[in-house]
């Protein structure tokens, strides 16, 4: 077999085969970026961002978040219904309701122009 008859192996390898590894890296990056964009969209729009106290603006209050809810006793959905169990539920319920109503949440008017010191000033 002379030189001219030898098959040209290099020319038979396609572009995809030659850059298989690079394409894998590139496609991984693209998939990662797409997933990150979707995650950020869900994070922003689901309301999770608003209650995420790990955000930089919330450093001052992070430590005050209630993380241990151990004093909140569960009430079993199975069991007898009698005076004792009703009273037990009453006690648990009243306790938590009092906690929920302990102060007027989001009350007051801290965003009023006068509260912020940007109200109209009469001459």
């Amino acid at each position, binding site marked *: 077999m002379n030189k001219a008859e030898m098959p040209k192996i290099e020319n038979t390898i396609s572009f995809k085969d030659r850059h298989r590894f690079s394409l894998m890296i590139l496609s991984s990056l693209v998939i990662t970026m797409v997933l990150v964009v979707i995650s950020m969209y869900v994070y922003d729009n689901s309301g999770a961002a608003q209650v995420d106290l790990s955000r930089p603006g919330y450093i001052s209050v992070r430590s005050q978040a209630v993380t241990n809810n151990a004093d909140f006793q569960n009430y079993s959905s199975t069991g007898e219904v009698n*005076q004792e169990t009703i009273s037990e539920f009453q006690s648990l319920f009243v306790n938590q309701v009092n906690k929920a109503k302990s102060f007027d949440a989001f009350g007051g008017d801290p965003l009023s122009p006068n509260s912020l*010191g940007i109200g109209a000033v009469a001459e």
Partner: protein
Amino acid sequence: MMTFKRYFVIFTIFALTLSSVSFFSVSAQNNTITSQQAEQIRSNCVSTKNTLNQLHASDALLRVNRGQVYESILTKLMDRFNGRLSNKNINNSDFISITDKYSSMLDSFRADYQTYEEHLSIALNVDCSSNPTEFYNAVASARTKRDQVHTDVVKLNQFLDQYQLALNQFEKDYQTAAKEVIN
């Protein structure tokens, strides 16, 4: 020809109505401020921003802690008590009705807080020294949204009171029925 003219007149009236409605709705959202107020906003810009930042953080904390309590009352108490009554084939329609309303209101509370936080963030991102009017309007908008969150909290508390009343009535009825059985 007459038909075309008629359509033209109707279209013109419709377009004018639509544009005037848009104009008035935009006007209602954008308050104009006096030059004195603008000056006040510029001079108090830093302190106002600090106050807003503190409010932003404290409201987030309140949302987390209060939201947790409201959620726990629903899932750990109300739903379970309703379930127990249901398991024993006891009429719990009053409790279910109040619980459903409470649950819907809790969803509104979450959504309204999200809207409020977004509006407050917009206000925080406005440069109050160069755009006092825009800042004033952004704060006014956040204020309206915060009022809505407060309204939701008041309604949630009202539903808790209603559940409490239903519970008291249920206990009273139970005691009456128990006495009748003994007698």
